[in-house]
């Protein structure tokens, strides 16, 4: 009951325009009062999760992404990918998706992708003759890849809250991310084939340009490999890998002679603000999580659902639907902070692997950033493409159908998140 009141209060306050952190905090205070816990515990629980070592990876991965953006490393990745696949049919559309995959291997944040490489992607597509609406929609859809391709901020938060390995989650995200890339590509091709979207003729392939951009961008291109390899081989933990990513990005800034004090200040300042927002939310979310756990909501839900079905797939479908609705009305991090303690223990009780659920949850909540009314990604992409969200200009409805088959695949084929099964399934 305390949980129901707490969530209802949060939704009411958030809908009234109270900042999400204050809305979460006020409802958490109410939750604590309703379960007769001393209100002093608010600060203790707020501190508890924020002080966890895996969470320390978040500021460093954000900083690495920002350093790459500020020092022009993202531009080099884009130029290389453009010369590599730009000659294919709908070449720049493919460049957009592939460059998001590569940038996803560095930043781990969809909105960092939109703010960084997204500007370049949309500008290049518009100049080449693509419709602005399609360019914006594809950039938005491609940005969803970032939190799936390791490193991922959402995976780190999930791992801390569910007490699972960050490294395992990172590895589990690779194949779904890759599937999403293929799905975006297929949808784009289908749009062209059906005549719903006209693509300008691609540029001819030029070995010399590809070779030159490859050499110029090589150190930046291997950044995702450096990060992933160090984690997979066990050389570093994800937290250490995040620090390594920052050091490497700074080193590249010096190497390319693009490092400036102003740029450095911008990267650090932007990262500090983003990190603070995430950490404050995580801290307040920990208090809400404590209330939900104390209220034994997962047990109650399991009992109720147990009377209806014993199929883990039915439970996963219901939970995914609930998360999808939650994600449409809330930002991803707050939605995770509420969704994980509510549904995490429940799905585990029904025999679903927490790593598998982590990938499904992340994917489902990510869909929220492309849907109104709260889709931050939608707002971000409209801001950089100068399209109006209210007028429904954005052609995301064309690109998004490709998302749903991947979601079904993720939900019902657990092997999709198993890297060891890569060879067998794909």
């Amino acid at each position: 009951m305390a949980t129901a009141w707490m969530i209802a209060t949060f939704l009411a306050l958030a809908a009234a325009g109270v900042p999400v952190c204050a809305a979460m905090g006020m409802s958490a205070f109410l939750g604590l009062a309703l379960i007769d816990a001393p209100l002093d515990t608010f600060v203790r629980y707020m501190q508890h999760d924020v002080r966890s070592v895996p969470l320390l990876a978040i500021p460093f991965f954000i900083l690495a992404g920002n350093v790459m953006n500020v020092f022009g490393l993202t531009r080099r990745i884009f130029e290389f990918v453009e010369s590599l696949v730009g000659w294919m049919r709908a070449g720049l559309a493919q460049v957009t998706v592939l460059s998001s995959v590569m940038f996803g291997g560095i930043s781990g944040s969809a909105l960092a992708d939109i703010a960084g490489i997204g500007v370049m992607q949309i500008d290049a597509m518009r100049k080449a003759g693509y419709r602005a609406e399609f360019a914006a929609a594809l950039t938005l859809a491609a940005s969803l890849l970032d939190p799936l391709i390791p490193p991922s901020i959402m995976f780190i938060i999930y791992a801390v809250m569910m007490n699972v390995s960050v490294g395992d989650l990172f590895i589990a995200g690779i194949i779904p991310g890759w599937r999403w890339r293929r799905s975006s590509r297929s949808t784009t091709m289908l749009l062209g084939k059906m005549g719903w979207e006209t693509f300008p003729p691609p540029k001819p392939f030029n070995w010399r340009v590809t070779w030159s951009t490859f050499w110029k961008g090589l150190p930046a291109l291997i950044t995702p490999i450096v990060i992933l390899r160090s984690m997979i081989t066990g050389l570093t933990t994800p937290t250490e890998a995040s620090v390594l990513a920052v050091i490497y990005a700074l080193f590249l800034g010096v190497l390319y002679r693009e490092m400036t004090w102003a740029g450095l200040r911008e990267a650090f300042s932007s990262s500090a603000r983003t990190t603070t927002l995430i950490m404050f939310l995580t801290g307040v979310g920990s208090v809400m999580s404590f209330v939900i756990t104390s209220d034994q909501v997962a047990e109650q839900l399991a009992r109720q659902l147990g009377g209806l079905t014993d199929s883990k797939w039915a439970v996963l479908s219901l939970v995914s639907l609930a998360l999808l609705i939650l994600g449409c009305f809330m930002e991803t991090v707050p939605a995770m902070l509420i969704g994980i303690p509510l549904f995490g223990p429940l799905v585990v009780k029904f025999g679903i692997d927490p790593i598998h659920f982590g990938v499904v949850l992340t994917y489902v909540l990510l869909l929220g950033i492309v849907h109104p009314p709260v889709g931050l990604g939608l707002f971000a992409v409209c801001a950089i493409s100068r399209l109006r969200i209210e007028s429904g200009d954005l052609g995301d409805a064309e690109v998004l159908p490709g998302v749903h088959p991947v979601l079904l695949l993720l939900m019902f084929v657990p092997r999709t998140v198993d890297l060891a099964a890569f060879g067998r399934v794909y």
Partner: protein
Amino acid sequence: MVLYFLAYALIAKEREYIRVELFARLLGPEGRRRLSIATRLLVLVFQAMVAWFAWRTARFAALFETPVLSWPEWVFYAPVAIGCADIVITEAIFLVWQLRRVELPASQSHGVLS
């Protein structure tokens, strides 16, 4: 890591909060102003509560030390109290400005959360 809570005051100062403006869009300019004052008051109350409880917790934690480095435990709670007190002051100033109908500086919309 607890320094995050100090930096949060900067978010308040530049009004970079993440918020959902579903209801506000339906209102006229005066309604929006009133709603904004009400939400600011709520933020102020919330941050004041956190600052107060953080202060109490820090005072209690001052009785203990960390096991290895023997640092006083209050060090980990003080940034929450200071950061939230800072936000209370900032929000109070903004509230007074808003009541006097003084134009607030443009909000720096932000939020790279996903």
